[in-house]
């Protein structure tokens, strides 16, 4: 199309309803003639309603077979519908930026590129940024708040495990003595609050705010006070490192950021759950290692061996050498921990933590009436 002289393509006998114009200020249908001059002239009964520069014309979505156009310099909703395909083809060849609004292949590539970049940055924040943030923020959380969170968790636990605490008189005496010794060695000013809970589950944990729970199930499977002391010192390690608070900040942040990816902030859904557990597992593995180290230090301080604690964990969890996906394991591999604890083992240099009699009464702390 070299000759760009003024030409009026459908010079008169334009098919009825061939072109329809909506001016964007009302829904009135204008039956129009089109003239292709310097720009696209839209004419109704001899009066020019609008002139659209070819470079400003864009394609809009429409029914198949009808070319629907808009113009960036006209009212944003003004639309021209060209129903004559020959005229449409001429117009398409004249408008250089017709498809600029469409997303197109390059647009999709841009979206993919930015999405991958965003994903990489989110993963980097989860991997490097969140642990750092949790470390820095956890000391700023007031201990009163931590204690409240702990109280809330205690309420739920009471509901879950029946809430039967064990407190036979002599048993409690022995338990408190043990806790006091460990707390002092661990550098706590006041003994850490601790309770034995009557449930057969072999477990022990620390609540936010620093309350330690020992389950009778674990006590029942322990052979001597050093085993239990190691576990309690491990839990004090969590208290001292404020691992609960750090973990809460970390897993809350992880849920939120992964929700950013998949579009569900509440963190439900199998996909979110799977990717989240991948991240949190490695995080809590580190916390467990640190708590183990803390326990080792405390036991050294007390002049007691560290290996018994490893023996107890091994007895409870069994051989997990190669049948857990190590990247998903919430706790460090028991064999690794066992090895670490026996490597650091030193022969007893201090007095026993509890006398035979005290140990027997501690083991019987959940027997009522004694």
């Amino acid at each position, binding site marked *: 199309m070299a000759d760009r002289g003024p030409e009026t393509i459908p010079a008169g006998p334009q098919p009825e309803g061939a072109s329809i114009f909506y001016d964007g*200020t009302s*829904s009135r249908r204008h039956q129009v003639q089109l003239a292709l001059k310097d720009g696209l002239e839209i004419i109704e009964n001899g009066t020019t309603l609008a002139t659209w520069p070819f470079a400003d014309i864009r394609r809009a979505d429409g*029914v198949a077979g009808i070319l629907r156009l808009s113009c960036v310099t006209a009212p944003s909703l003004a639309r021209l519908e060209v129903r004559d395909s020959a005229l449409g083809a001429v117009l398409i060849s004249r408008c250089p930026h017709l498809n600029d609004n469409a997303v197109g292949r390059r647009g999709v590539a841009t*979206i993919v590129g930015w999405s991958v970049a965003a994903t990489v940055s989110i993963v980097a924040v989860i991997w490097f940024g969140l642990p750092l943030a949790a470390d820095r923020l956890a000391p700023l959380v007031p201990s009163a708040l931590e204690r409240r969170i702990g109280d809330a968790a205690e*309420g*739920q636990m009471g509901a879950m495990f029946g809430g039967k605490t064990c407190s036979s008189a002599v048993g409690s005496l022995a338990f408190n003595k043990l806790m006091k010794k460990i707390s002092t060695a661990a550098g706590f000013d006041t003994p850490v609050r601790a309770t034995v809970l009557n449930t057969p589950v072999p477990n022990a944990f620390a609540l936010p705010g620093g309350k330690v729970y020992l389950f009778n199930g674990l006590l029942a499977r322990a052979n001597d006070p050093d085993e239990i002391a190691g576990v309690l010192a491990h839990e004090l390690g969590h208290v001292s490192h404020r691992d609960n608070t750090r973990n809460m900040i970390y897993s809350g942040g992880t849920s939120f950021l992964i929700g950013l990816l998949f*579009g569900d902030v*509440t963190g439900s859904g199998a996909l979110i759950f799977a990717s989240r557990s991948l991240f949190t597992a490695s995080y809590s593995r580190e916390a467990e290692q640190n708590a183990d180290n803390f326990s080792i230090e405390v036991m050294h301080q007390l002049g007691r061996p560290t290996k018994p604690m490893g023996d107890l964990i091994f007895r409870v969890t069994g051989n997990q050498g190669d*049948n857990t996906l190590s990247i998903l394991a919430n706790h460090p591999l028991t064999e690794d921990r066992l090895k670490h604890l026996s490597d650091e083992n030193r022969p007893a240099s201090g007095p026993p933590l509890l006398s035979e009699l005290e140990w027997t009464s501690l083991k019987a702390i959940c027997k009522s009436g004694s």
Partner: protein
Amino acid sequence: MNEMSSVPHFPQQPPPLPASSVIADFSGDRGDFFRLVRNGTGLELITFGFYRFWLATDIRRYLWSHTSLDGDAPEYTGRGRELLIGFLFALAILLPIYLAYFLVGIEAERYKAFASFPLFLFFYLFGQFAIYRARRYRLTRTVWRGVRFWMDGSGWAYAMRAAGWTLLTGLTLGAVLPWREAALERYKMRHCYYGDLQGSFEGRGSELFQRGWKLWLAALSPVIVGLALFVMNAGHRLSTAQSRVFGLVILIWLIAMPFIYGYFKAIEWHWWISGIRFGEVSFESDLASNRLYGLYWKVIGWFLLVSVLFTAYIFACVGLIAGFGNAANIAARIQGNIGMTAAIFAGYLGLLLAMNIVLRIYLLRDVWARVAASATAFRLEAAANVAAKGELADALGEGFANGLDVVGF
């Protein structure tokens, strides 16, 4: 005969309606839609989900532009980028709310274990707000004949109404659901405009109840039979025969549920379209009640097929990685095997993506096509010269809906 005839099923019948009726048409090719959704779902996978905003936009553009009224299709002018921004803003607002929710929850739990449960009410309100605002966004991105639709009113006022009605619906075991739908739709439609033409909704709860009460009873049949047996036995344990009867009722109910739901949805769509008004313009639907349940069965069929394929795939993976033979041996070898975990994850992703495509084709496109093609507009000339009006709304509501995982429109 009067135009408020009690059987408005077939718009061809009542002669008093003006002759100017225009039948809506849906012309979208199913293959095109399949390709659109297949490619979009693939891109969703590559972009870790971020493409969902653009896919949603493309789907709407397809649906809008292939539905025509009087030869003109509406145009969807929304863009994926707007949805992304709306989502990011919604997240920024939701973050402190989640934190506050967490702290309030702690206080409530301290008072009594699991007492934080009622706080879900708050998120329900938020979800309803999101539904209202999401409709507002979609409406203001809808242009027909050079004039856009728009919406005012308050998302919170709507959310309060929705919560109140939902409470009532729960207390009455669903009996007031039709009145809930009617009241909420009246609120939404009277805040809808096409240019300067105000919308309204004339569907009545009683009409919907009349057409749907049998389905309601059918949906509640296990509860009814259970109660009846309980009363008959005066609280004693069920005899074997009675338990069998009860089991049979539940089995039949499970099989009947897709039919019940499909019939209900068809009746509801029919009722909804027939209630819509814009100024003088009114709509009618001739959607037959049995038009939709087949689609639900097809989705169930596809789900079973995909599940069977997934199971077969898992077995094949186990066979390839651990070999066949002693079950205990295999279990030991599979546990912790990274290859196996990756294979299961890939299979699960495939299952998820396949079901996404199936759901979008049957429950989005096909339902839309059947519902849209059932509509007829009357006195459309009343909208022939409507002045443009109304501002664009932001996509915050869509963002909340996405962030809170609520569906509705």
